[in-house]
């Protein structure tokens, strides 16, 4: 098993967060029309009534190649914010984020899919969304099709797919692209038991070949099978960062109910 805590001497971490904070505004009142903006200006009332809240506060994190890190915590504890920051979807309010290598983030399965396009066309478009050139995608295309295991239905428009098949297709693209860093946000529970087992096997293989995995999941048994390290977040702060068994034990002891 790789070391649970990062070696500080390692010259090239895959992901490094230093003192990262992210502030969001929760709007009690958000002016979204110019008329109202004007009225509020004239009456000298505030344009927005908002409350700043930190989704993350001073998070330090170093993830090495070959590590699979599970982010644990209640809803709203900042797990998804970490993934979005690493992916570059959000910009940090403070601190620095450094990553090396290509990142594939699956925050919402099938974002970028279009119902009128066929499965095959959607694979190509989704690959392009994730930043691949045509040649790079061609290298992985066969693998994706085989992994998704849907054969003939790839020429059918996506709108005739079941939601399970759609999720399966999206997941296959993300897993087969062999990025350096793979970010998964509660998207592990996809497809039937057979497909899930294959996903898990594929992700383990990815990690063993030096890929870096960061994931958010509430399926604790899957997390235990897949991850080497756990990070427990509460109210935007890291309260525990250790090997997965230690963190899971503490997390369970804290009385976190598990999904059935």
């Amino acid at each position, binding site marked *: 098993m790789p070391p649970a805590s990062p070696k500080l001497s390692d010259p090239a971490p895959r992901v490094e967060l230093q003192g990262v904070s992210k502030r969001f505004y929760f709007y009690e009142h958000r002016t979204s029309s110019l008329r109202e903006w004007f009225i509020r200006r004239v009456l000298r009332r505030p344009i927005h009534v908002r409350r700043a809240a930190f989704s993350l506060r001073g998070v330090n994190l170093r993830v090495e190649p070959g590590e699979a890190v599970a982010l644990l915590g209640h809803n709203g504890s900042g797990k998804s914010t970490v993934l979005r920051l690493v992916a570059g979807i959000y910009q940090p309010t403070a601190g620095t984020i450094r990553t090396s290598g290509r990142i594939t983030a699956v*925050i919402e399965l099938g974002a970028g899919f279009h119902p009128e396009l066929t499965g095959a066309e959607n694979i190509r478009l989704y690959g392009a969304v994730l930043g691949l050139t045509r040649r790079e995608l061609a290298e992985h295309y066969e693998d994706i099709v085989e992994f998704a295991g849907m054969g003939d239905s790839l020429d059918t428009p996506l709108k005739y797919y079941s939601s399970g098949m759609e999720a399966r297709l999206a997941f296959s693209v993300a897993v087969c692209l062999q990025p350096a860093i793979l970010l998964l946000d509660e998207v592990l529970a996809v497809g039937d038991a057979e497909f899930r087992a294959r996903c898990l096997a594929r992700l383990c293989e990815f990690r063993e070949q030096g890929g870096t995995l960061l994931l958010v999941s509430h399926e604790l048994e899957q997390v235990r099978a897949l991850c080497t390290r756990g990070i427990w977040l509460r109210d935007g702060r890291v309260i525990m960062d250790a090997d997965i068994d230690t963190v899971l034990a503490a997390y369970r002891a804290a009385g976190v109910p598990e999904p059935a």
Partner: protein
Amino acid sequence: MVSATVPRAAAGFPRLRQVWRYRELLRGLVVRNLKVKYQRSLLGFVWTLVNPLLTVSILVVVFSHVVRIQVPHYWAFLLSGYFVWNFMLQTLTTGTWIFSEHSRLTRSVAFPSEILVFSAAGSRLIEFLSEISLILLALILLHHHGVPPSYALVPVLIALQVVLAVGLALPIATLSVFYYDMYHALPIALTSLFYLSPVFYPASMVPESLRTLYFLNPIAGLLTLYHEVLYAGRWPAPTLLLGTCAATALVWVLGYAIFHRYAASFAEIV
């Protein structure tokens, strides 16, 4: 250590380099837009022509028989500018809503989001290229009875038109992420612009004293260029050409700067 490969690019050229890396996405989106628009429609592209041609016919009847605009071969005059106006109108309209239409994408994938606006202009451009080929053919056969040398400028005009459309669409689309007023304001603005641009009358009819003010609208310059090159078949005045180029470049730089200033926060808002 390589810094992030995700879009955290600065304004200007680094930003455009990012876009270049995502060219496959641009191509994919353009193809998707066209495919979705034309599949399951038997007449396909014909429909795209029917609407503007109908408008053109009505305008020809009204302005050569009712309100008589003193322009010989009025149909040829109208054809040489109307489709350009139509391109601007549709690119601005679709471009404005493109971020909220793709909110799922913007929220969950890091990519240079101006690609969405480019793709709106790109798919419209493909349609425009087919339209303009037919128009050029009609003007060559029925109006000029030959190919005027000024037609060599057509690619330059098309490039200007695309840059201008994107330069205008980027800040409008940015504003519409924050203020839904654009939904109401844009149709009004575009209707006003239709009358304030030389679409169905030549800019030469505008009184001399107002002309400087009139040409502050960069679309007026572009349409006048089209009228000179396509309809009159002569080389445009260098001041007009260079002035429109400069105005277009200014619109692009300002528009892109406004977009760039706010683009990083789209994912938190759309």
